[in-house]
C-alpha cells in the first residue's frame, strides 16, 4: 500500500482527462497500414542505395508490374482476412481460371470471350464452394481451402494433360476476340519512355474500390464485424454466412481477373503455375497490417505489402545477388513486418 503511495511515476489512470487528444503521429501510427508504409520506405531506400539499376524509371516500372499481379489478388485476400477467413486455393485458382478460359475457347473454337465468361462462372463457383463449405460446416477455412488448393492443383495438371497431352494450354492468340480481350486484360502504354502495363492501373482501381467498400459502405462494416466477432455480428442481424461467401466469391472474381491478365499477356498458361502464390497474397496482406485472427486490416496496406514483395523480388535481381536468397528475404520480411505491426499496435493502443 505504501509503495503505491510513494511512487509518483504511477499516477492513477485519469478517466476524466480525456480531452487531451493523441498526437497526429500516434494517430497515423494507429492506422493498420502504418507499418507497411514505413517498411516500404526503408526497403525502397535500401535498394536505391545498393542496386543502381533500381534507380531508373524503367526498372521501377518492372517492379510495379511484378507488384500488380500480386497486388490484384492481395486486395480481395485482405478483405477475406479482415472477414476472418483464409483462402489457400487462391494461387492455383488463378491458373484454373486461365486454363478454363483458354481450353474452353480452344477446344470448342469459340470466341475467346465465351471462354472468358465460362472462366468467370467457374471462378465464382470455386469461391462459392469454398465459402459455402466454410459457413455450413464451421470447419476452419485454412483446412477447407487447403483441400480445394490440392484438388485444383491436381485438376489443373490432369485435365490439361488429358485434353492437350501437354503441360500447358495451347496458344490462343489466333482465336477470334483475342486482341480485344488482350486490350482489356493485358494492355500497356508508354509514358515518358516508360512502358506501363494496365494491370498496374487496374490494381490501383481495385484497391481504391476495396478501400471505399471497407470504410464507407455498410458492406465494409459487415466485413469488419464478421471477422472481429461473428457471433456478435449475427446477434445484431448481420448476414454472416452471406458476407463470408461473398468474400470468397470476391477472391474468385479477382482470381479470374488475374488469370485473364496472365493468359492474354502470354497467350498460353502452364498448368503447374500459381502454386505458392497464395502465400505471397497472405504475406502481402499481413505485411499490410491484416490480423491473422480477422477484424482488422486495410486494402491499402495489402497493396503496399505487395509493393514491398515486388521491390524485394526485383531488388535482389538488380542488386546482382543470387536469387536463391529470395525466399529467405521474404521470410525475414514477413517476420519483421509482424514484429513491427505488433509493436506499433501495442504502442498505439497504449496511447489511445
Amino acid at each position, binding site marked *: 500500500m505504501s509503495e503505491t503511495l510513494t511512487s509518483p511515476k504511477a499516477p492513477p489512470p485519469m478517466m476524466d482527462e480525456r480531452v487531451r487528444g493523441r498526437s497526429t503521429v500516434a494517430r497515423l501510427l494507429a492506422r493498420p497500414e502504418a507499418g507497411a508504409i514505413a517498411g516500404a520506405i526503408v526497403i525502397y531506400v535500401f535498394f536505391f542505395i545498393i542496386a543502381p539499376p533500381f534507380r531508373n524509371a524503367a526498372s521501377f516500372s518492372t517492379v510495379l508490374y511484378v507488384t500488380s499481379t500480386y497486388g490484384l489478388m492481395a486486395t480481395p485476400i485482405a478483405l477475406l482476412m479482415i472477414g476472418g477467413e483464409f483462402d489457400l486455393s487462391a494461387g492455383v485458382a488463378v491458373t484454373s481460371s486461365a486454363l478454363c478460359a483458354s481450353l474452353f475457347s480452344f477446344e470448342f473454337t469459340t470466341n475467346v470471350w465465351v471462354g472468358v465468361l465460362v472462366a468467370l462462372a467457374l471462378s465464382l463457383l470455386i469461391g462459392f464452394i469454398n465459402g459455402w463449405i466454410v459457413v455450413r460446416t464451421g470447419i476452419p477455412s485454412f483446412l477447407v481451402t487447403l483441400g480445394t488448393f490440392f484438388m485444383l492443383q491436381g485438376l489443373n495438371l490432369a485435365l490439361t494433360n488429358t485434353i492437350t497431352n501437354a503441360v500447358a494450354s495451347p496458344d490462343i492468340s489466333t482465336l477470334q476476340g483475342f486482341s480485344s480481350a488482350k486490350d482489356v486484360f493485358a494492355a500497356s502504354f508508354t509514358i515518358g519512355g516508360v512502358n506501363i502495363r494496365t494491370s498496374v492501373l487496374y490494381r490501383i482501381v481495385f484497391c481504391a474500390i476495396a478501400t471505399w467498400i471497407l470504410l464507407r459502405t455498410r458492406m465494409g462494416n459487415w466485413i469488419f464485424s464478421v471477422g472481429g466477432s461473428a457471433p456478435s455480428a449475427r446477434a*445484431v442481424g448481420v448476414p454472416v454466412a452471406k458476407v463470408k461467401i461473398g468474400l470468397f466469391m470476391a477472391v474468385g472474381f479477382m482470381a479470374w481477373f488475374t488469370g485473364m491478365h496472365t493468359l492474354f499477356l502470354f497467350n498460353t498458361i502452364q498448368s503447374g503455375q500459381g502454386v505458392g502464390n497464395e502465400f505471397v497474397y497472405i504475406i502481402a496482406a499481413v505485411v499490410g497490417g491484416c490480423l491473422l485472427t480477422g477484424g482488422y486490416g486495410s486494402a491499402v496496406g495489402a497493396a503496399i505489402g505487395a509493393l514491398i514483395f515486388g521491390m524485394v523480388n526485383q531488388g535482389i535481381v538488380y542488386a546482382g545477388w543470387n536469387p536463391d536468397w529470395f525466399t529467405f528475404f521474404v521470410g525475414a520480411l514477413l517476420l519483421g513486418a509482424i514484429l513491427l505491426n505488433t509493436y506499433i499496435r501495442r504502442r498505439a493502443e497504449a496511447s489511445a
Partner: protein
Amino acid sequence: MTSTVDTQTGVSLVKLTNVSKHYGSIIALTDISLEVGGGEVTCVLGDNGAGKSTLIKIIAGLHQPSTGTYEVEGTPVSFDSPREALERGIATVYQDLAVVPLMPVWRNFFLGNEVKKGPLMNIPFMKKTCKAELLRMGIDLRDVDQPIGTLSGGERQCVAISRAVYFGAKVLILDEPTAALGVKQSGVVLKYILQARERGLGVVFITHNPHHAYPVGDRFLLLNRGRSIGNFEKSQITRDELTGLMAGGSELEALSHELEGAGAAAAEAAHELEADVSELGIGHQPTSGS
C-alpha cells in the same frame, strides 16, 4: 424509444404464461410465468443452471416454448428468429454484449442498422447520433472512433443498452449485465436500468445477485432447477427474504454442516454461514404471490 404502453392500460408488453421448454428428454423449464409492462423492471433471479438462459432465449425468439403461451402487447406470438422479436421491439443485450471489440464505437452502435445515404453510409450522422445517444445515457466519450474494446466493461454495457433503446426497443432483456463488473460500474449500469424504466421501457433484468435486483426491480421471479420458486411484487418481499430464497436456505445450512466437519478454518466459515442463515430468517419463508 418512446413507448408508453404500460400498466395503466392493463396490457403487458411481454407476458409468458405457464411456459415449459424441453430439449429432447431434458426439461429445461417447467411452468414459468413472467410479465413485464412499460416502465417496469422484472427481475429474474436464479443460480447457475436455474434456467435463466433458456428463459431469455425464449423471450428473445431464439427458441420457442414447448408448451404455454407467449404474448406481446396482448397478442400471442411465435417467433422464428431474434430478428422477429426485435421487430416487435424486444431487444436482448447478451452477456457478451454483441459488440465487436476491434471496431470503433460508432460502427458497433449502428452495426446491422447502418444509416445509408445513397450507396454509402452517412458517417457524420452516425457519429453524431452515437455521441449524442451515449451522452443521454451519461457517457461522455472523447472519441466515438476509438475501438469499443478500449472502453470499460460498464461503458460497453451502456453502449449496448443505449443502442437497443435507440433502435426502438420497448422491452430490454438484460442478461447478467452486472455479472462481470466491479461495484462502482455495477452501480452505473443499475442507474441506466432505472433510466430505461423512466423512459417507459419494460426491462427484464436477469441476474444472480439479489443486491442488484432488489433496488431496481418491481417484480421478482425466482428460478431454481427450471422451476419457479416464487413470483413476487416488490411490496411482498424484503431484500433479506429475497437473498435468503436465492441462497436456498436449506442448502446453505447443509453447506455449513459440511464445513464444520472440515477443520478449524472451515468451521469458522461455517459459523458465519449459520449466522447468516438465521439472520436471513429462513424457515419462515414468505408465501408465494403471483
